[in-house]
Structures are given as structure tokens and as C-alpha cells.
């Protein structure tokens, strides 16, 4: 891991070439890299942003192309959301890499999944971070993992659907998932479970790098499976079960390459994370669960680690 040795050589703001009409923003709180099997999740609540000059600071971080994309959004609320999302990705990655948030270049894979374009950096070897973002109108979240694909999806707990839940499920979910939803007697439980399952399925197709259009939801089932994994004291796990995924065409053959976490975030959202296992790591082969660290942030203003707080609860892995 040569980047470890070179870390001390990195300047905090390596962007001396650009003219900066705005005052330099305060430095970002650096973060230690995610350990194996660990996801770091950073989220921002747009309503907490009251200071218009902060928006200008965020805009200043973006590439010209990103700025154009932000301006193409229809209306101020959507523009603000798009801006915050880009600022969140850049500032989050900057914490791990100890460079200016402006330095990153991005590209999309063939299905449209954004990823960092690392080969621009020939002076040092950056940590091989992978990330994924998700937004709703009231929260934007960015998940980060070291060297393994990750997918994140968040959804408002109160999200209502215009169509009937079972109609949506019959059309887009697998037969096993539809059968599960049908066992729920009341409509509210059905709606909550639909949303939770949707976030898990989204997180999975995003981790795959294919997205909703590249990996049809109907082709795979996500469900709970009784597991033999050891309970870790202190975790609020009510039963020893884990979230698994299997192909509809090959039921019973679990796709063990992927592990999941589903939880409630900020009392307002369901959040799902899907991460690939490191098959070379003996500890990962034992199906140990995904570890999670969560921060609430308003970049350049405040950061709060909320992992062990009421902001992150009812974790199922």
C-alpha cells in the first residue's frame, strides 16, 4: 500500500493553479479509510443549509461540466439538490485522499454509474476508493468503500406510491418477493416493506454497476435467510438472519459475493447498502456481516459521527 508512505507528502489544497475569487473554505475533517468489510456513509440534509454563500463555495468545487448539469435541473430546489450531491461526493472523497475536493475527475461506466477517474494522478497512488450516491428531496447520502464495489439507496419512510403496492410488486418484483408482501395484512406494513425491499434491490443493482435498467428487478430475489453467523454483543439483532440475494432462475443458490445492510437513518429514511465481499479475505468468506460507520455532514460547516446514535437504528444485515 504505497499510498500510506506517501500520504505525508500530500498538500492539503493542491490546487495552486486555479484563480480563487472566493476565500478558501475551511479544511475538511479528514477521515481514516474504511477497513475491510466496512462501508462509510456520509449524508447531508438539504434543509440544514441556510447560508447562500455556502452554495457558492460548493459550486466553486465543481467542474464546468458538473456546473452545467446542475443548471440543467428544472427549478431551484432540484438545482440545489444536484449541487449538494456533487459537493458531497467531492468533499467526502477529499477527506480520505487529503487533496482538494476540486481535484477529482469522474467518468461513467458503460451503464452510466459514476466512478472516479484515478489515472490523472501520476504523482502519487491514491487509495482505491469506490463510492455511490443516492438522493431524495430531503437527504443525500454517499457511501464509500475501499477497493470493492458498493451500492447505496435511500428512500423516505413516508414515501407514498400512486399505484397499488401489489400491482407495482407484481410487475417489478420477483414471485418470492410478491408472496412475502402478500403475507402482510395491513396496507401500511405492506407499503413500508415495499419501500425497504425497493431500496435493497436498488442498492444491489447499483453495486453491480448496472442500475435499474441494466439489471431487471424481476430477475432476482432479496430476502432474509436464517444464518449461522455469530452474534456480536451490543448489536440490536433480534434474530440471527441475514439478507441474501438469489437469481429467480436459480433459487436456493445464494449469490454470496454480496452482503447487505438495511437500516433507518435520521428517523426519516430507509437506507440500504450493498457491498461486494472480498473473496481473497478469509474473514470475509465466513460470511461475517458488513460493518457500518455513518456521519451526518454539512461540508465545511460541521460533521457528526452518528454511528452509535439514534440516527442509525434497526440495522439488519
Amino acid at each position, binding site marked *: 500500500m504505497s499510498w500510506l508512505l506517501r500520504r505525508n507528502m500530500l498538500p492539503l489544497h493542491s490546487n495552486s493553479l*486555479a484563480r480563487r475569487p472566493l476565500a478558501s473554505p475551511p479544511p475538511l475533517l479528514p477521515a481514516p479509510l474504511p477497513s475491510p468489510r466496512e462501508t462509510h456513509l456520509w449524508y447531508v440534509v438539504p434543509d440544514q443549509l441556510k447560508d447562500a454563500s455556502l452554495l457558492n463555495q460548493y459550486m*466553486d468545487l465543481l467542474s464546468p461540466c458538473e456546473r452545467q448539469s446542475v443548471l440543467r435541473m428544472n427549478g431551484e430546489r432540484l438545482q440545489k439538490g444536484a449541487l449538494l450531491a456533487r459537493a458531497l461526493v467531492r468533499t467526502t472523497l477529499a477527506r480520505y485522499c487529503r487533496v482538494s475536493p476540486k481535484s477529482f475527475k469522474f467518468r461513467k461506466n458503460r451503464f452510466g454509474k459514476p466512478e472516479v477517474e484515478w489515472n490523472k494522478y501520476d504523482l502519487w497512488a491514491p487509495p482505491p476508493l469506490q463510492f455511490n450516491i443516492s438522493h431524495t428531496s430531503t437527504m443525500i447520502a454517499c457511501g464509500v468503500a475501499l477497493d470493492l464495489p458498493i451500492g447505496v439507496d435511500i428512500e423516505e419512510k413516508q414515501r407514498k406510491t400512486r*399505484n397499488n403496492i401489489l400491482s407495482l410488486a407484481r410487475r417489478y418484483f420477483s414471485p418470492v418477493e410478491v408472496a412475502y408482501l402478500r403475507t402482510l395484512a395491513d396496507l401500511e406494513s405492506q407499503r413500508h416493506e415495499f419501500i425497504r425491499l425497493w431500496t435493497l434491490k436498488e442498492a444491489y443493482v447499483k453495486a453491480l454497476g448496472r*442500475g435499474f435498467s441494466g439489471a431487471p428487478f424481476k430477475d432476482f430475489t432479496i430476502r432474509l435467510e436464517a444464518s449461522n453467523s455469530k452474534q456480536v454483543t451490543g448489536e440490536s439483532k433480534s434474530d440471527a438472519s441475514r439478507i441474501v440475494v438469489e437469481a429467480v432462475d436459480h433459487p436456493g443458490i445464494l449469490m454470496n459475493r454480496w452482503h447487505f445492510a438495511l437500516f433507518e437513518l435520521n428517523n426519516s429514511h430507509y437506507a440500504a447498502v450493498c457491498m461486494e465481499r472480498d473473496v481473497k479475505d478469509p474473514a470475509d468468506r465466513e460470511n461475517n456481516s458488513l460493518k457500518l460507520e455513518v456521519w451526518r455532514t454539512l461540508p465545511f460547516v460541521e460533521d457528526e459521527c452518528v454511528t452509535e446514535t439514534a440516527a442509525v437504528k434497526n440495522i439488519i444485515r
Partner: protein
Amino acid sequence: MASISATAISIPTRPRHSLQAVNGIFGLKSVSISSLKRSFPSIRLQPTPMHFRVCCAAKPETVQKVCGIVKKQLALPEDTTITGESKFSALGADSLDTVEIVMGLEEAFDIGVEEESAQSISTVQDAADLIEKLVAAKSG
């Protein structure tokens, strides 16, 4: 307005335009694509995919009806401008919104939309054109 247009398109060796918050969150007015295209006819703001309209574009009433369904699904403020050119991604539609919009359109127009066709829709006009094609196929 002209200086904002120039900054948005120029190569970033010029000093960045200093952004002032005036009224509301952004002092930047949403620069309309068509006004920028008139000023810089040779420059494309974004690489739009080439797609051919096989038949005539959909009737305005169809486009209007689609706009109404989309506005309702996405709970957009009343003063939001949606036209045929509006892209679903620019309206903040996520994948669940997209499937709900497709189902809403199916119900409103009494048609069935295949998943592959649904994936190819990126603007309101695309949706309206597809709807008219499906309606014509049904009655033809």
C-alpha cells in the same frame, strides 16, 4: 446574461464567474438551452443522443396530458415549466418515479408499455411519441 453564457461554455482558463446570491438561493437564472444555442450555434451544451422520430411528433394534447401526469407524480410546484423537451432526469425522477409514471401513462391512455420501450424514454416528447405509436397500433 451574455457573460454567464460565455462562462458556462468557455474553456476554464478564464477566471471563474463569481457567484452572488441575489434573490433566493441562486442569483443564477436558469439559463435556457435554446437561448444559449442561439448565441453559440456550433456548440452543443450536452451530448444528446441522436434519436429519430419515426412518425410525426405527438399531438400537443398528448404532450400536455403527459406533462400533467409527470407533474403530479413528481409533485412539482405549480409554476414548474414542463415541455416536450424536458428530460425526466432533470425533473428529479428516480427509478420508482419512472415506473410509476409509466404505469400512470398506461392507465391514462389504456395501453401497455414494454420494459425495453420504457427504458428508451428520456424526455416528455419521447413518452408522448411512444404513447401515440402504441395507441395507433392498438386501434390500427
